[in-house]
């Protein structure tokens, strides 16, 4: 494929195009005319994925602010997977919840655009814009079930806090700009590397405020409080989407900024992130114990997983970088699967996401119960699932940098987390079901999606080697 300065943004273009097409399609769709809009979205995503694969190892850059290095391409592929799975699960729930498919898919695709751009951008301003694009899209998705107060409330909380946090982020950008005279990561990096900046209060302000901004998107303690509410209020599919996609994108940008241009200052930010990671792991798991709503429970669990990812970031070594990528992939597949199950079990009236609703699920929907169990085991980090390899990978990174304490906190907190994952299993397998409205039968497509993610989970768990090498290759080109 001929090399032009647009190469790097081809994946993004694909998705954007798909988004626009979807919008138009929705616009031209007559009343209750069936249209495979989801299909369009998937085509676009697949295109993006293909482009990302073709761009592998070519380190294309565009406009000096977008790069297509392997790192971002890996993230792109994760995001593509997230998108496709989300579309698949949505296919069943949109109809049920009476959500305008076109708008929904379009916004989702634009969100993915923002996410991809976050991973690919090498300029703080662009990162900020991408972040805003993603965020605004996700706010809308969160609140897309307007008729439900919870949905709107969640959206507003998410929105307000997001805006609040991005103000901090932007302020941080401003300080870095003020010190280095640029928002370009490479320039910033070279300036910082040139004269030791760690003494300069302004740059420290900048770093601190950036941490706030990113930590908010990663939902790290103490910037996490939006996530339980947003996750619970949003439709389950959207929750799965943002708990994986947003996290992946935010982490990608986080890693790029802090491990490339801000790497010289690692001694300055590592302790802070150490504390944040530890607090995140502990609080996420501990508070999860008391939850009775599955969505909320998984919200706290995903907070905790954010903590594990940050542990890899704190480690800051190559293993850590690769581990983060692997973790994102594993986590995305697992969590999407779990939320997929939740979404499919919901009805228009009730989300059916209360622990009691899962009593005896094994008897009514054995397949779903088994799938859910696998996802939960993966979240809990049991072999032979992706979750175990991922956890081992990040802890290995932490230990490699001598952060035994962090690793110990990590493993112990994961034991605590197992407790509440198992509560669900107990409900599904070991409790007799009490009379509940049995949700609609699961369509083949949705089931296929679940099986797909299960295969992914098991593949990463049993034969992780390929993906691990892939991840290591991804980080080898940069940093």
């Amino acid at each position, binding site marked *: 494929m001929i090399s032009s300065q647009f190469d790097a943004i081809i994946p993004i273009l694909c998705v954007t195009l798909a988004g626009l097409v979807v919008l138009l399609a929705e616009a031209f769709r007559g009343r209750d005319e069936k249209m495979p809009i989801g299909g369009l979205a998937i085509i676009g995503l697949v295109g993006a994925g293909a482009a990302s694969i073709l761009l592998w190892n070519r380190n294309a850059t565009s406009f000096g602010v977008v790069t297509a290095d392997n790192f971002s391409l890996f993230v792109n592929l994760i995001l593509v997977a997230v998108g496709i799975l989300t579309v698949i699960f949505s296919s069943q729930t949109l109809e049920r919840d009476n959500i305008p498919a076109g708008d929904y898919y379009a916004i989702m695709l634009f969100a993915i655009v923002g996410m991809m751009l976050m991973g690919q951008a090498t300029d703080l301003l662009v990162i900020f814009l991408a972040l805003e694009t993603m965020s605004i899209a996700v706010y809308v998705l969160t609140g897309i079930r307007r008729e439900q107060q919870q949905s709107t409330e969640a959206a507003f909380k998410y929105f307000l806090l997001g805006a609040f946090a991005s103000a901090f982020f932007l302020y941080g950008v401003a300080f870095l700009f003020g010190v280095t005279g640029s928002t370009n990561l490479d320039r910033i990096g070279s300036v910082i590397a040139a004269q030791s900046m760690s003494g300069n209060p302004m740059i420290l302000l900048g770093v601190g405020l950036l941490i706030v901004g990113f930590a908010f998107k990663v939902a790290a303690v103490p910037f996490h409080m939006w996530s339980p509410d947003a996750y619970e209020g949003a439709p389950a599919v959207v929750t799965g989407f943002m708990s994986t996609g947003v996290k992946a994108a935010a982490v990608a940008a986080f890693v790029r900024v802090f491990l490339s241009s801000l790497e010289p200052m690692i001694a300055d930010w*590592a302790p802070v992130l150490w504390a944040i990671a530890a607090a995140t792991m502990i609080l996420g798991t501990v508070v999860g114990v008391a939850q009775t709503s599955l969505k909320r429970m998984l919200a706290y669990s995903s907070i905790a997983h954010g903590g594990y990812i940050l542990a890899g970031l704190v480690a800051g070594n190559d293993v850590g970088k690769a581990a983060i990528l692997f973790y994102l992939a594993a986590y995305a597949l697992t969590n999407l699967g779990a939320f997929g199950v939740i979404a499919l079990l919901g009805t228009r009236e009730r989300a059916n996401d209360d622990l009691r609703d899962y009593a005896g699920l094994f008897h009514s929907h054995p397949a779903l119960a088994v799938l859910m169990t696998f996802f939960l085991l993966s979240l809990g980090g*049991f072999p032979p699932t992706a979750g175990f390899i991922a956890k081992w990978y990040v802890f290995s990174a932490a*230990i490699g940098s001598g952060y*035994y304490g962090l690793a*110990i906190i990590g*493993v112990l907190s994961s034991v605590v987390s197992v407790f509440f994952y*198992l509560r669900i299993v107990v409900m599904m397998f*070991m409790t007799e079901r009490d009379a509940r409205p049995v949700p609609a039968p699961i369509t083949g497509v949705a089931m296929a999606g679940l099986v797909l993610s299960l295969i992914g989970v098991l593949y990463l768990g049993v034969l992780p*080697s390929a993906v691990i090498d892939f991840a*290591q290759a991804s980080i080898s080109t940069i940093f």
Partner: protein
Amino acid sequence: MNGLPLLSIAILLPIIGSALLLFVSNRDGSKNALVRNLTLAISLVTFGVTLLLWAGFDPSAGAPAFQFVERHAWIPAFGIDYYVGIDGLSLMLLVLTGFLTPLALLTSWDSIKKHVKEFSIFMLLLEASMLGVFSALDIFLFYIFWDFVLIPMYFLIGIWGYDQRIYAAVKFILYTMAGSVLMLVAIIGLSWMHQSATGEYSFDLLKLYELSIPAGTQYWFFLAFTIAFIIKVPLFPFHTWLPDAHVQAPTPGSVILAGVMLKMGGYGLIRLAFPLFPEAALYFAPLLATLAVIAIVYGALVAMVQPDMKKLVAYSSVSHMGFVVLGIAAMNVQGVQGASYQMLAHGVTTGGLFCIVGMLSDRRHTRQIGEFGGLKTVMPRLTAVMLILTLSSIGLPGMNGFIGEFLIMLGAFKWDPRFAVVAALGVILSAVYMLWMFQRVFYGKITNSHNAGLRDLSFREWAIVGPLAAVSIGMGVAPNVFLKPMEPAIQRIVDRVQAHQPLVVDLASRKPQASSLAAVAGEVSSSFAKASEDKR
């Protein structure tokens, strides 16, 4: 025959079998019989394979340490291989696993009525993972099997257990997992040490043996490993999950749990904790031995006053496994041989005891000793078998229990007589509680009318307990059959450990890391300090 990858076959057979079962649709329980027979067949074939392993195993001292070795790169980036192989010790435990699983399955035919298919799948997965634990030579692989064992057992207890099953299941999995995750940290640490020493990651046990590990690290790593193992054993005071798990688990679960899973702990100590960190091991051995003798006496005393048969047997396991740990702590050939033998013997005997208790509770739906009495009149055969198992459990010479206990006490006596003296008390107490239970359950007149009509052993039940009783006598008469193959392996391990000096720990060096929490704190402060000094 050695052309075949027998070891992998043994591990994979049950997995494949469970995969097969997935395709048997048995929602309404109509195909229970098929499922049961199929499962039994698979487990029997697996047992056959383990016997083939035994047949093909070369026990001579000159033979390679590990045989039937198979090695395939798995995660080359981190030097993680699918690396299995067995020495005499592993071999015996493999055979034990293969031997007990079919019997456990047979016991399930009466007690497990619902979800037979799922039950069988979990049993087979359990067997596979246990076989894996005993044959893994890559500690990453070992940990994976080690951790995976929990899942099927969790379901076995949780779905098919008795009324308190959920509490027991959750307690079991969380407790044992809490112990093992620290081991994971230590395992990772080891691999990094190997990496910094040789430049390449490796989880290869044999390579890690050669690693020279600084004292402080050994101290903590040994603790991390050992805690995982002594929780599994379980050693006082980490034993309280056991009574709950045993009592609540269905009979087959209890059989496997007591018969094999507890042995994983002892195996881990022998195979990993001691040879990997010899200095620390020798330093901690007295502590372990102290806990062990406490466990022996304590378990016996508590067992004595249990009103529930299963609980009684469970606590007796605590006592017997205390012997195992004592023998290991002694770390001389007699001690470790005795410990290994005791593991086998306890597996057979206690497995049998649980079978019998299960049969009784199947008939009467209670395990309260007070509910029984005078059973000898109505079920003489069961009583006879029970008597044999009881005697072997109290270590009557000529029964398997005696060999292990004697060797352990001999080893302990050679090492430090005080421990042997206390341990010998177990000899008295075991007689007390076992015979007391035996008397209350089987002797006397039938007072409770429900017991009047109990039927004696059925043919299948004979098939279950008969072999167990026979083996427990045979092991007592001809122990060398089992001791000989283990000898070289254990000799090697003992030599490796005894080649080192116990590590000297001065409190000063220990202070900064008095506990993992303190370690965290220290780490924070240090990293902060690092940061602030980078500042200027």
